[in-house]
């Protein structure tokens, strides 16, 4: 379980990194925290000729803010969110989600951008950031940037909008009002394992925002507009039957156990959120 021979590079600036992606025939992999790519290299599932490490790029470790948004650099680590060292777009949620990712050793190195680009359907940020209405900023080899909404970011399991000559630079989150509520619930076999089911609900009356997202499905997180609206209107935990019908419509191929776990997760996360109030 040793990787194939590869070249390891650590560009000093984002410009230098994008330069490396330009005009090359080499098979390149971008490494951030390396918490998923590391094992994949060792298993020889990833066989790059060159690795470009972005975890030390200061441009990817910045936090910028505007009146209605906060922009987090992609190379910020889970532990930095967990420890409350960063600004919070919504009270407590980023900390809560970060603290449930794998183990502290992984959180010390793993990054928010790395997790998004790896796009494991069972990972936390993919689902949580979709619920939060985030978008991501992607830089091309030519240095151009484009923003993509999280609902369009993940194409399927381990597939995203980011092309092989692009780098995910940052995650942009809207700021929520102090009356915003959130719930996030996942079931896993043990602490630190990838989830069997995830549900998240985020709502902000002032912004007329309410979104329900199911995660740890076969592919990208599933957004339910209908359930989001219903919970916002009724202020109540939706019933088994209602969630089941919605899931049957949105994801007809789920096996019954998975479907059940998603239903339970949504009920528990809504309950959690409504009690926060």
């Amino acid at each position, binding site marked *: *379980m040793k990787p194939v021979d590869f070249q390891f590079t650590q560009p000093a600036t984002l410009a230098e990194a994008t330069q490396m992606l330009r005009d090359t025939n080499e098979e390149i992999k971008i490494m951030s925290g390396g918490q998923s790519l590391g094992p994949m290299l060792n*298993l020889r599932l990833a066989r790059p000729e060159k690795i470009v490490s972005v975890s030390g790029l200061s441009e990817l470790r910045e936090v910028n803010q505007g009146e209605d948004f906060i922009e987090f650099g992609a190379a910020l680590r889970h532990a930095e969110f967990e420890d409350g060292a960063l600004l919070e777009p919504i009270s407590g949620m980023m900390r809560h989600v970060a603290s449930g990712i794998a183990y502290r050793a992984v959180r010390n190195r793993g990054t928010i951008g790395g997790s998004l680009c790896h796009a494991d359907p069972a990972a936390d940020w993919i689902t949580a950031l979709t619920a939060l209405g985030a978008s991501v900023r992607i830089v091309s080899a030519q240095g151009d940037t484009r923003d993509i909404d999280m609902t369009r970011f993940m194409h399927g399991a381990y597939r995203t909008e980011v092309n092989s000559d692009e780098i995910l630079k940052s995650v942009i989150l809207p700021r929520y009002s102090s009356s915003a509520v959130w719930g996030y619930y996942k*079931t896993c*076999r*043990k602490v630190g394992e990838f989830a069997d089911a995830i549900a998240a609900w985020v709502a902000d009356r002032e912004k007329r925002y309410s979104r329900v997202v199911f995660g740890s499905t076969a592919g990208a997180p599933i957004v339910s507009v209908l359930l989001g609206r219903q919970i916002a209107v009724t202020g109540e935990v939706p019933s088994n039957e209602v969630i089941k019908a919605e899931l049957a419509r949105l994801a007809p191929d789920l096996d019954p*156990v998975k479907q059940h776990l998603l239903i339970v997760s949504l009920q528990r996360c809504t309950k959690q959120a409504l009690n926060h109030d």
Partner: protein
Amino acid sequence: MLHVFEVYVKTDKQNLPGWSGEVKTGIGACVTRKEDARLLSGHAKFVGDLKFPRLLEAAYVRSPLAHGHLKSVTIPEEYKNKVFTAWDLAEVLPIRPESTLPGYKASEQYPLAKDKVRFVGECIAICVAPTRAEAEDIAEQVVVDIDPLPPLVNASDAKSHDAPRLHEDWDDNLFLTTAFDGDLAFAEKNATVVIEREYKTARQCMNPLEGKGTLSYWDEKAGQLVVYTSTQVPHLIRTGIAQHLQMDQGQVRVIAPDVGGGFGYKCVLQPEELSVSWVARKLKRPVRWVEDRREHLVAGANTRQHHYTLKAYADDRGKLLGIDAEITVDVGAYSVWPFTACLEAAQAGGNLPGPYALEGYRCKTYSVATNKPGFTPYRGVARPGVCFAMELTIDAIARAVDREPADVRRENLVPGSAMPYTNVTGKFYDSGDYQRSVSEATQAIGLEAFRERQKEARVHGRFLGLGFGTFTEQSAHGTKVFASWGLPLVPGYEQAMVKLTPSGSVEIRSGNHSFGQGLETAIGQVASEWLTVDISKISVLMGDTGMTPYSTGAYASRGMVMAGGAVSKAAEELATRIKIHASHLLQCKAEDVILKDGEAWSGVASVDFADIARAWYLRPDQLDEEVDTAGLEVTQGYKPDIDTGVFTYATHAAVVEVDPDTGQVSFEDYYVFEDCGRRVNPLILEGQTYGGAAQGIGTALFEEVLYDPSGQPLTSTLADYVLPGAAELPHFRLEHTETLSPYTRHGIKGVGEGAAIAPSGAVLNAINDALEPLGVEINELPATPHKILSAIMVANSPE
């Protein structure tokens, strides 16, 4: 002030005449483990830490298919002298463990596959290079051509007569069938309750922190192949390597350095030990291979998988009248050396009745060959399976007669008054009070209060459950027992050497091995007890066949009983000799000398051990002419007074809550009441119990090797093969009692394996107790949330 026992008395130490106090680091003392200083600070030396000039690292080309004819292995020209196959190793004999059990069929496993591959992960070629990564690069360039054959992925299919043959010269796929044909007439006639169940346990990997690892080189000066290997049984491996490489045993030296856990995984000859040694001898260069986790999870998926169909007969009070069982063990492709593929089934058939006073017993066992790695004994050997089956049966009976399972269990156990007791399969239970262990557990849990809470919780939709698991564990069984299992190698007298060094400190040499279980400290305590020397002045050397007397090694919970017993005997003799030498220096009679705090005393005169040693080694001119010439170095052989083993027992009690919406199980309480005879070091024993129970909970709730229909393992990383972590384990509560074995030195019984046996019974009984109102009963391991939730959903579905 007489401290040394003149005659060895088989009773409690405190009752010995003249016994006046504890040696501070002697038997029974809570000495912190000496070895932890290096093990916990990164200073230990495992196979992977060794450094040799010109060292080559090895990687294997392993079979990608479960079953097939190996047509060819193509090696690129540039790697011709770096890759070796079965054709190169023609002079190496296949591993072909024999057994004298009637009907046993031997399998042949070549260290590198020849003609056929029989499981995914079987070694086909060994590749060497200066680094492991380069060796893996070479391995990728080797092309194997395999004609696939239909795979035998589960034992029930492999058992059927029209199944394809795994070993061509066999007439079926059965290594062995055994039958215990007891009389069930009384049970059948008088039973008012008949319980029929099917139980399944999963295939597991043992997952020691350090996997296998081996490093060999040819020592020109000694004319020896020196093999550093991560093993529990260095002397056995020496024999195994010499036999299979067709060398004289004098040409092989095996050294087990620090070993990062064994659990049984390292008590057998590994094919890799043979191929690495062969290449090292051929190239005259040191060669090392270290198993990685993926290799372990694929090629080491070799244990625990049983299937039971069981019929139990009981009366209307739940008194067990008879058991009629069929046990099928999914043995995998090959017999392991020296324990064979049949130890598991032999143990299962013999131990199913466990601690129960059962009269009617019938049991058939099948050891079935399948396309999986060859079965290897794992902590508890067969008993975690039989205990699980038996304990769930007891609870099923209790539910059928509507009684408290703890009561039914206790009433069925062999009573203390019946000890020693020979059970229905001829096991000789030496001592103990099994029933008390259930009473203690019942009390510690607070049974009545729990039932109240359970009732109350159900009203609020919460499902609490209580389960017990009781077992008895044969430990340190010896010559006759192993001979009866028909094995090619049988343990006899365990030897140990104890010596006074020229500076008056003590050195112990044992051919047994310490691989995390604390034996290094514990056998030191035994010597400390006899010699009155503090353990800080006692050094222990183990695991090197060039430096230690012969021992068959550490397995079968025998280390403390056997190596401890041998050290005890040698230390006792050394104490006698020290007294004789001291008598010359003290000008008194040897019988007037007593030992105290590392000094020899006669009246008010004393001489310390350093003076005694100096006189013997450096200043013999000070000694009388008629000095005892046997010296201050003693090797003794020991085995207990009986070969049938001494039986440790315990009751585990688990209180769980099952989340009916997710199938998650959480622990509210976990209590163990254990009796393993004399506790040599209570701290080590607690550690052993926690560790064993943690592994048992892994068996109960988490661990499972899965295969697809073609025999491909689906659990080849730790993301897929789930081990319990600290957060998943309960806070164990532990209590002990000490019923000394009348048949061993100091009354010691084995303890290493025990705690891994009971958890699956206790935990599954607790789950089933919790889910009884939902009409759910889980009889399959592991009880994963998915399995539990599916069962609840089926029970809830309208049809």
